[in-house]
């Protein structure tokens, strides 16, 4: 069902790229191992011995720590000079080399019961990197479950306060369990972490102008998952209405996230779908609504330097006029992940 739908939509949207993406989506995905700073384990050495590398420190050119210096990234056909881009610090994620299909073994707990790494789609790290969490920032993760990205954010060790929210209660309890498996209790106290189960779309009424950084990783058609799992599939007939109203829900969530951000703060919108309807179109819609309904001016921050930096690990869709998108490819079977960064000017 999902496949038919994708064939119809994406062959038009992605053109010649679609066959390569299609075969990658239908084949086993590739994972990355997010290293857990709070654990002490020999697992990591073993992994490195097998050939894994941290893709973040192995990007082309270095992430800028100081925003005043110009990025030295020059990669391929780029006539415009990439503007400096800061990334969240301290995040490390091991991946096997390009074309290597070795699987990660499950992580084992150390003597304190904390796991040494968390397996996730390495491309999922990109939105957290792009969010650029800096020392003592307050961060809101609006759709946080199952918790991988929240965990990434905590790895930066720069978050003064993290609010992790998800609509579903059972999913937030899963989120709690994830965090407890990785982060020492001392860092999960109420003054550092708040886990809530509110409807994200109403956040504008709960808290406004409250966070330095907001991550809006919205529910979407989860393309890869929808192709492989029949259970409760979003493309089933019983969920047609829900699926069709996704873009609207996504725009509402993004708008709420924007409202929750302090002026001068950043919002990062991300999805795991290839669909332009749920990606660029949603961003444009939310930006427009923010201006029209709330008089908020937003600036799009180009993620081109990020894409260039990690083009040796991921395949990015070329010529996206708004945001960046990791597309699946057999030799680098990560994604799909779409990301777009906005800055609140007013």
């Amino acid at each position, binding site marked *: 069902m999902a496949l038919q739908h994708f064939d119809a939509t994406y062959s038009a949207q992605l053109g010649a790229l679609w066959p390569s993406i*299609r075969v990658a989506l239908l084949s086993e995905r590739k994972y990355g191992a997010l290293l857990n700073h709070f654990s002490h384990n020999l697992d990591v050495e073993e992994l490195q011995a097998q050939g894994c590398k941290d893709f973040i420190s192995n990007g082309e050119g270095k992430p800028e720590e100081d925003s005043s210096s110009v990025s030295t990234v020059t990669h391929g056909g780029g006539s415009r000079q990439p503007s400096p881009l800061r990334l969240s610090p301290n995040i490390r994620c091991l991946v096997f080399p390009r074309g290597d*299909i070795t699987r990660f073994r499950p992580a084992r707990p150390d003597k304190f019961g904390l796991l040494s790494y968390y397996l996730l789609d390495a491309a999922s790290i990109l939105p957290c990197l792009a969010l650029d969490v800096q020392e003592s920032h307050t961060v809101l993760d609006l759709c946080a479950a199952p918790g991988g990205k929240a965990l990434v954010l905590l790895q930066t060790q720069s978050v003064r306060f993290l609010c992790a929210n998800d609509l579903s209660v059972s999913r937030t309890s899963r989120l709690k369990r994830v965090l407890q498996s990785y982060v020492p209790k001392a860092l999960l106290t109420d003054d550092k972490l708040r886990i809530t189960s509110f409807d994200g779309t109403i956040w504008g009424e709960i808290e406004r102008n409250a966070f330095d950084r907001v991550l809006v990783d919205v529910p979407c058609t989860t393309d890869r998952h929808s192709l492989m799992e029949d259970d409760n599939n*979003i493309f089933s007939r019983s969920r047609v209405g829900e699926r069709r109203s996704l873009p609207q829900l996504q725009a509402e969530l993004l708008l709420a996230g924007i409202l929750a951000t302090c002026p001068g703060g950043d919002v990062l919108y991300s999805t795991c779908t290839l669909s332009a309807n749920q990606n660029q179109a949603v961003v444009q819609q939310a930006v427009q609504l923010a201006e029209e309904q709330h008089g908020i001016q937003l600036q799009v921050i180009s993620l081109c330097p990020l894409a260039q930096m990690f083009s040796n690990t991921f395949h990015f869709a070329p010529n996206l006029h708004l945001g960046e998108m990791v597309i699946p490819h057999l030799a680098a079977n990560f994604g799909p992940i779409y990301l777009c960064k906005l800055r609140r000017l007013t």
Partner: protein
Amino acid sequence: MGTRVVVLQVLRQKLNYVPNSTSIPVQFKTCKASNLPSSLSCRLLCSVSNLTPSLLQHNKRNSAELSLRSLLDMGFTEYQAEQLYDSVSRMKGGNAAKHVLSTLSVLFVLGLNPTTVHKLLDKCPELYTVKDVQLQQRITQLRHLGLVEGSLQRTVSHYPKILTVPMKSVKSVVQFLREKCLFTTQQVAEILRDSPAVVLEDLDQLEYKFQYVYFRMGVKQAEMVKCRLFRFSLDNVRCRHTFLERRGLYQTPDKKGQTTIINPKLDGILNVDEGTFTADVAQASPEEYDVFQKLLAREWKEEEFEHGSIESYSEDDEKEEEEEEDNEEEEETRGKSGYNKKKKK
């Protein structure tokens, strides 16, 4: 008729060995004198008129004299004769030597020249161990199945192993092809001619391959024969097809036999080298096909291991009725099961 008998008798004389029960090939059409060693053909021409009944009751001798001399007399060059002699000497038991000469004679009667025979035995030393009677029977069987003169010799010389296969096995493969796969007799003969190794294939594998191509790929018998499908391994066929299918370039025909795209022809998929297949048919990079083969091999191995059992994980019951599945991240404890989390549609 007479010529045929004479040839055999002449050979017997020459070899000083009379096998009791060499069966005379029923459909032996012509004996090309030019295929015989020149010494023999001269003899043949000379002795036709001198046929006497006594020739038909030649003295039986129990042991054959396998010697370089006898090999040379059959028409082998010195080099070839030495090689043959060595190979046979190295084989265990005196029986090898006893049978070799009659085995060789059967091959000559088939119409093969000494060089071909030598190459054949070099390629397939197992032939030494096949009794001449069996050998003759198998050749006859192949003739019955439609391998006509010319084809028969070509097939045997390219794939001598076919003569080491018991008649029963050949029969069961042929029966399978005719009755289960509904190939015509003519088609079966062509398959034997073009892909003789089919007689050695496991019937289950053969069935899977046929059904895969027939149902999954929607290809009919005639095309299978034309493309020499049975020359290719199941894995090869499956891999190339699955690559195309997942790229969206090959569709299984529906009940009416229709597809919304034009499928590439089986010939164009199989009978090209990997580079051409990847670049032209699949329109992909070599790197993609490379990784794909590895991934698929692993998939199959795991399917086999699990015998198609449904994978279910008790921790995986986090599905909500109203919520989206935001599952691009997997629970740590699932580890490997996260990789296998798929139920193919």
